[in-house]
């Protein structure tokens, strides 16, 4: 009988601990998606940081997310918070270090996961570090035997006696994780997607991180007390404030939507023309809102130029290792996994002198790595004197120097792309890519002599958010590489033959040219092909003149819109290291239009719209619509929601000011010398933005749109819960059909059945 008893109690204990482990796992499973999603800075892409809440209606979702991220009503003892952060943050920061610290010879300590690293840290550190640390070290034998999950379980049981009453320990774990939400989010991101490590992959898990937090907290505070308390009244009050702010935003949106819908209605009545003659040139721009004004300018200056808006990666799903870089970066939207790889090389042979100059400059810039730093300080202060003087006084000279001696920014007519073995495109793939782009833009005939694929990027300096200014469809890189590769496909003789079999007769006199538009300095470059005929060259030169004029006007327009002094030169602004706002990026973006150009050709969109070329006439089964919507709409929604959240609720979702920022571990930014990893966009990036939800106009047939939205869970959520607004314009009778409730109110029209939702 005694044996039975023992067995029962052991089994009982086992069952109990299994149940507890299960409860904790369930809790974490639910909590993980709520952590902020922010890629490490080198791979920054725009995304909606509160994507988890897209399954709720917009108002509720934003309110709960904001209350959670702001830590509204949560009071934390200041002494506790300081000691806690001082202890915990350096442990994680040094574990995740990607090569920022110089002392890398002891990285073997970090191969056993975060929990193992923490244990080594405790073992080797001295108890003298602090009183709390002495406590931790003293009890080392008690907790070090357990794995991180076991430790959490035992600690929770010790604190809360039983895990059946979930509200208390849920609040406790959630508060711990969200106190340093940036770091927790990064841990979760790395755990779920290890390819996001910039240089050094580490084993990590959220459970390890949570175990460390629980351990430090339990040593810092007394057993029965929690240093974290919530004031429900304050929380409720903040919730109401948030709702009021959302109501204000909604009023703004209402005004904007009404205006834009009226504009559309008027334009549709007028502009139903179809061009008959072949344009002198056709230019494919990215759908970016910054290109919208440029398209307008160039169409005005030369009405014989036809412009199209297509996804900025031109269908080329590739990862490229740029010049002198160590790793491959994706040059396609984040939703697509790149299948191919290429390396960027210079066409001219890099001389040894050039290499030496580059190494010397890097050595001067990063002296903290060498013991010779004092020697450098003694022997070469003239370098620093000179660079400080030049960079402060004469930006033009600095730009010239950079170009001449460092080859920066790389002259794009000097670049070529070599595919890695086994990762290049087959003929069939090439044909498909070219066909998809042409078909989705509705360009099947009337090809002009010169077709330009214009990628875009931004050259800024001293800017950790560099990637956020690049082409969103290329994950923040410049779209030139894709443009060049596309043109090499489209100019290929075999590709053209296959295309001809598919009824795309591109004449021999047509040449595809790759171009690059720098949205910050408003410069451009078109790369001539060696095999161009004289007439093509003439046309190209004329386009160059037109583009130059359009860009000048574009700069004027842009500066007027954002209140920048017109006497400033955009080139200087992009070279100025002291400029926290080199350009305003996607500020003020508010809408997206999927349709032919004549729909929006005469409208004054002030650079607030994404423009995607799409022609429903050629699209019989909706395949082209699927191509543009699935590639472009999530990107547009992400950009808009990222700017929206950082602008409307900066404390919860934004990064704060750029000024006190400090780069940590090579993966992100902190404010000051120690603190939480920041998420969202910096204040300087969004201070001209107007927080509005995206309104997309799609010129297509009903059944196509409904089926495509229905196929994607995310798009369904976005539309149904009013995170973006969707309006369909019918190709036959030009009527507008709302897919969201707010727009249906504006249009006084019934909501599409599939998307009508009851009044919430």
């Amino acid at each position: 009988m005694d044996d039975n008893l023992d067995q029962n109690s052991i089994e009982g204990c086992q069952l109990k601990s299994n149940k507890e482990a299960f409860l904790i796992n369930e809790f974490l499973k639910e909590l993980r998606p709520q952590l902020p999603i922010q890629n490490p800075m080198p791979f920054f892409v725009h995304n909606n940081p509160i994507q988890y809440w897209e399954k709720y209606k917009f108002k509720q979702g934003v309110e709960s997310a904001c209350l959670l991220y702001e830590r509204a009503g949560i009071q934390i003892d200041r002494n506790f918070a300081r000691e806690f952060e001082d202890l915990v943050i350096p442990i994680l920061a040094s574990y995740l270090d990607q090569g920022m610290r110089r002392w890398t010879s002891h990285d073997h300590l970090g191969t056993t996961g975060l929990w193992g690293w923490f244990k080594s840290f405790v073992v080797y550190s001295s108890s003298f570090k602090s009183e709390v640390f002495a406590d931790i070290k003293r009890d080392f034998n008690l907790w070090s035997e357990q794995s991180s999950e076991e430790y959490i379980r035992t600690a929770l049981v010790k604190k809360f006696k039983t895990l059946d009453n979930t509200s208390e320990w849920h609040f406790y774990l959630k508060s711990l994780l969200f106190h340093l939400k940036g770091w927790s989010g990064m841990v979760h991101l790395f755990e779920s997607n290890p390819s996001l490590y910039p240089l050094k992959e580490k084993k990590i898990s959220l459970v390890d991180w949570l175990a460390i937090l629980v351990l430090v907290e339990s040593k810092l505070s007394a057993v029965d007390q929690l240093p974290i308390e919530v004031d429900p009244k304050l929380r409720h009050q903040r919730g109401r404030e948030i709702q009021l702010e959302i109501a204000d935003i909604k009023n703004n949106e209402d005004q904007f939507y009404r205006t834009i819908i009226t504009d559309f209605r008027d334009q549709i009545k007028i502009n139903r023309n179809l061009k008959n003659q072949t344009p002198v040139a056709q230019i494919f721009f990215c759908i970016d809102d910054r290109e919208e004004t440029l398209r307008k300018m160039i169409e005005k200056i030369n009405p014989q130029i036809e412009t199209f808006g297509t996804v900025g990666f031109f269908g080329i799903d590739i990862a490229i290792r740029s010049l002198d870089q160590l790793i491959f970066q994706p040059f396609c939207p984040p939703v697509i996994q790149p299948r191919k790889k290429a390396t960027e090389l210079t066409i001219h042979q890099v001389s040894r002198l050039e290499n030496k100059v580059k190494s010397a400059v890097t050595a001067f810039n990063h002296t903290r790595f060498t013991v010779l730093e004092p020697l450098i300080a003694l022997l070469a202060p003239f370098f620093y004197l000179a660079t400080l003087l030049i960079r402060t006084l004469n930006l033009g000279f600095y730009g010239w120097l950079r170009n001449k001696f460092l080859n920066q920014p790389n002259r794009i007519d000097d670049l070529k792309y070599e595919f890695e073995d086994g990762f290049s495109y087959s003929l069939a793939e090439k044909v498909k890519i070219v066909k998809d782009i042409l078909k989705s833009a509705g360009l099947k005939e009337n090809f002009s002599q010169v077709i330009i694929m214009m990628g875009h990027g931004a050259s800024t300096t001293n800017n950790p958010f560099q990637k956020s200014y690049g082409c969103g469809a290329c994950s923040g890189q410049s779209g030139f590489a894709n443009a060049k590769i596309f043109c090499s496909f489209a100019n290929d003789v075999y590709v053209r033959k296959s295309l001809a079999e598919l009824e795309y007769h591109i004449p021999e006199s047509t040449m595809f040219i790759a171009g690059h538009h720098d949205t910050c300095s408003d410069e451009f470059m078109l790369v001539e092909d060696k095999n161009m005929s004289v007439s093509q060259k003439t046309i190209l030169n004329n386009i160059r003149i037109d583009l130059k004029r359009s860009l000048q006007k574009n700069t004027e327009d842009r500066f007027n819109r954002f209140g920048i002094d017109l006497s400033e030169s955009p080139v200087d602004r992009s070279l100025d290291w002291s400029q926290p706002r080199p350009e305003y990026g996607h500020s003020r973006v508010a809408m997206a239009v999927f349709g032919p150009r004549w729909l929006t050709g005469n409208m004054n969109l002030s650079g607030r719209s994404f423009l995607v070329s799409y022609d429903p006439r050629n699209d019989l089964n909706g395949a082209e619509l699927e191509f543009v919507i699935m590639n472009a709409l999530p990107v547009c929604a992400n950009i808009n929601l990222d700017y929206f959240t950082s602008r409307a609720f900066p404390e919860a979702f934004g990064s704060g000011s750029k000024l006190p920022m400090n780069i940590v571990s090579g993966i992100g930014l902190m404010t000051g010398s120690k603190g939480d990893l920041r998420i969202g966009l910096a204040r300087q990036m969004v201070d001209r933005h107007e927080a509005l939800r995206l309104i997309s106009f799609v010129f297509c047939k009903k059944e196509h749109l409904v089926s495509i939205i229905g196929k994607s869970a995310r798009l369904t959520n976005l539309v149904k819960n009013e995170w973006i607004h969707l309006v369909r314009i019918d190709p036959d009778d030009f009527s507008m059909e709302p897919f969201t409730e707010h727009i249906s109110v504006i249009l006084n029209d019934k909501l599409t059945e599939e998307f009508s939702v009851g009044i919430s």
Partner: protein
Amino acid sequence: MLEFLNTIQDLFHHYEYGFSFSPFSVTFGILILFTLSVVGKFSKNYLKGEVGAPRFWVLFTFFAFGILISCFAKNLTTFYVGWEMVGLASYFLIGFYQTNARSTENSMIALANYKICDLFFVMAILLEESKLHTASGFCLIIATLAKSAQLPFSSWLYRALEGPTPSSTLFYGGLSLHLGAFALLQFSPMWDHSVALRVLVFLIGFSSAIFGFLVGSTRSDLKTAFAFASISQVGLIYCEMALGFYNLAMWHIVGHNLLRTWNYLRGMSFFDEFFKKEYHQQKSIIWDNIFGLLPDSFFIHSLNSFYVDRISVLLRKWGLLIFTLVAYFSLLISHEGDLFSILSLGAGLLLTVLLFVKERIKPNPFLAGLVLSQTLFLVSIHTFFEDRIEHLYLVISIMSLILLMVSLWPAVVIWKKRQSSGFDRHQLLGLSVKLRGRHLVFLVSAIALTGSPGTFEFFIQEGILDELWSKSHLFLVVSMVCLTLNTVHTFKIGQLAFLGDSKN
């Protein structure tokens, strides 16, 4: 009134103030002007649209004024004027983001370090006057350690990078950091005659250099890595001075300043270069091998910055306490008569120091403030009982105290309310957002109490010097200690009341 003005004039004649131009000071002066121009132009664009930008410019100008005074100072007293100004500007710029609790805490640490070393500076001035050269040289050396962040006063520097990047550059990249080394350079006759002092300087510099290099190699964030590299370089400058290579040291200061300014201002370009081959080729293989030979525990100790935080905290607290107790008891033994004054002074002193040391008791901060003001009051009474004119000092110091209390009154009210509802956990009250005027009044009266030259506290200190120098040197020193702690505590109370996030 006339008597008051006459007294002030007398005071200014009491000590010599003046400027001089020597090769070192001119070099440093040109360097200062150059750095100020570069950083100023940088800040012009960078600070546009930033909340509190006018405050930045005021502090920038204040700093410029202070450091130029120090640069061209003829003697230690003039140098001290600029020294104090730079310290104050530094304190305000670290805590530039007033709603950030961590910034305010870190600025307090910097101020505490500065004030302790300022004490040594004042002693150096005094001892120099009485021709005790070795002692004054020693005090001068210790005085420069906080500004130049040498061991054991290094723990504030890497916490001080909370302000905007241009201010971090100015102070911790370049100018303020070198001010300590420059002081030693300019006033080298004070200490280089003694071999013992030279050895001391060399040891401090060498250990800081090694400390900075080792710990800086383990830092995972950019600005702190630069801070430690700066500590290391300044340590080397100290070594050079100890060995007598003054020209080399000056050249090193110039080169290092330019290097660090460049580093800090372009720090944000890190991601541009992080993936480039050239960046990763920079690491020297020799040193990687040498590092690899060191044991794991050494790496972890280095990661913990060799516990210098804990050491400096303990040193600050217990060192001060022991010093005060020793001085007080020696005073008790030596001093004759006037028991009342000794006891009252002693009580106030001990309470002050105890409150400073035992922070974990979590005392009522406002009560502490009252106690401290009382101390000051008592000191003033005791010293200035006889002379009519000094009553003016008394009056003015009482007025400052009243202004202080008036400006702090709303904070007291809120604090009491908080305490009853159970949320008193040393939360910063963040009243500066609503009560700007009062914050200004508080700051003015607090600065008046800090003892920076030109403030009334300074005149009181002068008075104390006059009175007590003849009576007891140690007593004098102890009063100085008390006044220093007074300063620190006043600012701490102000922080509790005015800084921090008002939503909390």
